């Protein structure tokens, strides 16, 4: 059974539809990229997948393994965080919040989980650093470690490369690939970087208010839409 599937889903804000007739599914081990121009409804779809916005029609079905909000999420960076006084470990630990239930405080188990996800991403040495003093790429790694704390199955990344330079972007790509391949965590990612995306992703979902493509990356490259979108980007 699919981890997450959308069946004819529509989203609307105050009666105007922002995305319509979305129909796709993601299975274990998939690496799905959602592409499309600004205002194509990508962010709205992410909100829907996280259960923060109810679809106005259609259905989003989560497999039983994803119950209890077991989705790791990497939101777009907000301006507040840039001057926020927080330790790296504090931030990563907050990813364990969804497994606490009604308990008010973290257990040893949660601290260990936070440490191990820092280790998996190779940033154990940043544990005692101050979050706001890190570089953009390091901050993204920390947030990725936090997301790993809250999931075993599925990671949702919203524009993880925004504001990063090409070298750091490449680093982050291989890190995400590592998470996907070696840890067996499925990935759904929204990105503007179409060239990078087709290199790494196994599936592509192209939105333009309506869904205009969903399928394997190879098929996307052969399709009309895919080659036009890729070509268009090259002209920029």
């Amino acid at each position, binding site marked *: 059974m699919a981890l997450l599937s959308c069946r004819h889903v529509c989203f609307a804000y105050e009666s105007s539809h922002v995305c319509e007739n979305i129909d796709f599914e993601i299975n274990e081990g998939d690496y799905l990229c959602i592409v499309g121009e600004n205002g194509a409804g990508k962010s709205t779809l992410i909100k829907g997948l996280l259960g923060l916005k109810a679809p106005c029609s259609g259905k989003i079905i989560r497999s039983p393994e994803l119950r209890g909000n077991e989705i790791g999420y990497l939101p777009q960076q907000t301006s507040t965080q840039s001057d*926020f*006084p*927080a330790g790296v470990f*504090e931030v990563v630990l*907050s990813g364990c*919040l*969804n497994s606490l239930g009604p308990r*008010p405080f973290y257990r040893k188990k949660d601290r260990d989980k936070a440490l191990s996800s820092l280790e998996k991403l190779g940033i154990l040495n940043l544990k005692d650093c*101050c979050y706001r003093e890190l570089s953009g790429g390091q901050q993204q790694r920390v947030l990725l470690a936090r997301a790993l704390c809250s999931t075993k199955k599925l990671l949702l990344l919203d524009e993880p490369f925004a504001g990063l330079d090409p070298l750091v972007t490449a680093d982050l790509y291989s890190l995400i690939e590592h998470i996907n391949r070696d840890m067996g965590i499925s990935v759904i990612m929204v990105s503007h970087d179409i060239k990078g995306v087709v290199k790494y992703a196994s599936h592509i979902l192209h939105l333009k208010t309506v869904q205009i493509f969903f399928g394997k990356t190879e098929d996307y490259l052969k399709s009309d839409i895919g080659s036009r979108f890729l070509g268009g980007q090259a002209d920029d």
Partner: protein
Amino acid sequence: MIELIKGMFSFNFMVRAILVGVPVALCAALLGVSLVLKRYSMIGDGLSHFGFGVLSVAVALNLAPLAFSIPIMILAAFALLRIRESSKIKGDAATAIISTGSLAVGIMAISLSTGINADVYSYMFGSILAMSKGDVWLSLCLSSLVLILFIVCYNRIFAITFDEAFAQATGTRTNLYNFLIAISTAITIVLGMRMIGTLLISALIVFPALSAMRICKRFKNVVICAAVISVICLLSGLVISYALATPTGASIVVVNIIFFIAFSLAGFIKSRVN
């Protein structure tokens, strides 16, 4: 100095002022860290001005000030948060409307009943003599409630303060905690406003948090540091107020300003050294 402090404690009103002041200062500092970082400090300001209106109306109608103000202030805190979310009127403009509006209503209520007098002055700038025995008990109970709530929810409060989108996505009920913070703020402001003054109480929320942020790099340290600063400032403010016969609220805020400047300097030097 010791003589002075001994003298202070020989007055019952000073003991009451300390019993009310210390827990209020603690609560204000803890909540303040979250409010400042969430860019919600204007809510504290709006609520304190609103408190002036409510207090004046309560006195004009001959009602018990605290018992009347607390529920109304909690409603106002709800309303302010809601307005921020709906964003038809932007948050800062909405706060300005509520601040000035309730100030005007309060002044009208006073002039139509008792007339502008010494009471108005003490509402605005605080009075050390304001606390009765009943107030002390009510304050102690409510502020310990706020403190316990803050400690129990500490990890959630950190999560929603740092990244509300993530907290919400991973199943934290962010609205619930936002309301808890707003309600706690309302209660803290009501408890403190007659001693500190409605115009100055929001300084207790903002200053300790900002001072602590100059030098601390971890959220937990900021919270602890802000709490300590806040209590020290309150106590030294009370001593100054007693010794120089200055208004309590203003004395406390002045000490807070001195701390803020000192911590800013320390933070600046620290960043230069590293």
